[in-house]
């Protein structure tokens, strides 16, 4: 629950290049600050807490009338938020990703998604970002689950900059939102202002030999690393930041399938059911191509490590991306 000691980007601005490179920023911090700003401007914005820690001071002390803490009760968090939204409010419901997607799964599905209510479920600790906390705090199945929810918009910002853009871009969304954030600071991948388009994959690097489709902080930054290395090998890799998992940008995927030798998907999530599955679904419909899914295997870890180390150990690493991409472009044998 400790926050990084560095200063995050002032909202609305893009942080100074030099410390971006050096530290990274926790998306969570930028998110919270942005939420307070939205709430100051719009009294319909409510912060619904489930004993997450931090919101009660940051938000609750400044805007107590717009702050509600339902305690450690994630199912109730969803039901209460749905009830509030039905009356015309815009509740931002906060919990840990695994608890939203699994503990409160049915309430999220029936009460929030099924009713198409403007509840914003904002989760932290996604993927393996709480690596040292053990498997009950790993959320590597959440995308597979929330991808099935009707009416749901699912957004996974790649860094703190994109987090702020995503929060603002979805402020008026008439339906429900699932915004998936990590825990600690992660590398910044965006270094200059850009236009965030909900539902549209962002082309981070052009390329026509192979396509890397990534979602989430480490996957995207690893894909960028892989791009460099592949360039050195004479392979031109397109890099797409698939920040919106639902609705998925089918066109960008199909273009990749048609214009390049194959697709490598990269996610801090199971290899089954998530981004890789969504991409495989789309390409096999119209433009079959090879899809190498890089992600986490479905076993619980029996030891601890930090986010990046656990990912690497699970098979999510620049090296694996490079190998996969190279083998798609230059098949062995």
């Amino acid at each position, binding site marked *: 629950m400790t926050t990084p000691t560095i200063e995050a980007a002032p909202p609305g601005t893009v942080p100074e290049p030099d410390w971006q490179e050096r530290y990274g920023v926790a998306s969570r911090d930028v998110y919270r600050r942005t939420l307070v700003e939205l709430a100051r401007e719009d009294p319909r914005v*409510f912060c619904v807490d489930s004993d997450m820690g931090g919101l009660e001071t940051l938000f609750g002390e400044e805007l107590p009338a717009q702050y509600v803490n339902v305690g450690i009760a994630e199912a*109730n968090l969803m039901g209460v938020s749905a009830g509030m939204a039905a009356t015309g409010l815009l509740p931002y419901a906060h919990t840990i990703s695994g608890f939203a997607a699994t503990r409160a799964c049915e309430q999220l599905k029936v*009460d929030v998604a*099924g009713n198409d209510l403007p509840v914003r479920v904002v989760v932290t600790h996604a993927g393996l970002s709480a690596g040292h906390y053990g498997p009950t705090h790993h959320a590597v199945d959440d995308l597979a689950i929330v991808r099935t929810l009707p009416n749901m918009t699912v957004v996974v910002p790649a860094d703190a900059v994109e987090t702020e853009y995503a929060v603002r871009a979805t402020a008026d969304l008439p339906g429900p939102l699932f915004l998936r954030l990590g825990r600690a600071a992660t590398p910044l991948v965006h270094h200059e202002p850009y236009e965030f388009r909900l539902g549209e994959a962002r082309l981070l690097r052009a390329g026509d030999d192979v396509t890397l489709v990534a979602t989430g902080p480490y996957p995207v930054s690893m894909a960028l690393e892989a791009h460099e290395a592949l360039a050195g090998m004479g392979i031109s890799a397109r890099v797409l930041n698939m920040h919106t998992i639902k609705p998925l940008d089918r066109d960008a995927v199909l273009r990749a399938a048609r214009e390049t030798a194959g697709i490598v998907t990269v996610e801090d999530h199971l290899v089954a059911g998530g981004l890789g599955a969504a991409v495989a679904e789309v390409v096999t419909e119209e433009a079959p191509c090879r899809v190498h899914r890089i992600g986490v295997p479905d076993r619980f870890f029996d030891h601890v490590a930090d986010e990046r180390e656990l990912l690497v150990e699970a098979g999510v690493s620049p090296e694996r991306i490079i190998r996969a991409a190279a083998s798609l472009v230059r098949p062995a044998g």
Partner: protein
Amino acid sequence: MTTALDTAPATAAPDVTGPVDGAAREAAVPPGAAGPAGLADLADLAHEVRELVLRMGTSPHGTHVGGSLSSADILTVLYHRVLRLRPEDPAWAERDWFVLSKGHASAALYAVLAQRGFIDRAELDTYSRPGSRLAGHPLRRLPGVEFPTGSLGHGLSLASGVALALRRTGRAGRAFALLGDGELQEGSVWEAAMTAGHYGLDNLVAVVDRNGLQITGSTEDCVGLEPLGERWRSFGWATVEVDGHDLAALDEVFASLPHTPGRPTAVLARTVKGRGVPLFEGKKKSHSVQLSPRLFQRAMTGLNARRAR
């Protein structure tokens, strides 16, 4: 005893179609509205609800007869005397909210919605048939249905969220949820109870249809609920026990909400599963029944005989 209006915030719209105490209550019926009814009309209305439930039970999949009949009197009083609603404008901002948390009693809900004019009476004949909006559990966007239900244990969180929002935004409406007693075995009910108790939502009412039965038998044999009043009180609620088939008693209880200012109220309504049809009364098998034409006739005969007594 306070009246219902005493407990409503001062901002309550004057043109409510819901209950007003005493004479005013009777006078407040706007032309064309199916309700609110007089106390004397309730018995007829409740009888009709039961008849309509039995008819819906003749549909190919049958219906949840037992739990619909045990809720019939509660729903009759709520929809005809208590809830401030505008059937012609279901989204009226100052309305009371009702959540049928025990969604399987949808047949009884459809009956009162038809009586109040939210839906056409003729539509009741489509119950549970292909193409119908009247499913075994209430569907979203049927006029008068605030939230679709059917999975037990969701309703009280939804109603708590509504009550909290109305409170925070200074609006007049109240939120009511009707729960089954077996449903109280769901932990999510107690999460909601805890939050509502903590926030002292006295614009929130949980009505428990305490018919003593769930699918596998007696609640006390399955996973016991007693001392039920203690449970609710220890979670910060005011409780009222009432005979859930005594229309006047129900009316009185609902007219004097909240029971304790600053606390949500749990109305523990003692009921009989299958109530009104001797064939079904107190029977676990009444939970879900498909009524053949013969069974329907027997049930109707019983219902009418029961009433004549």
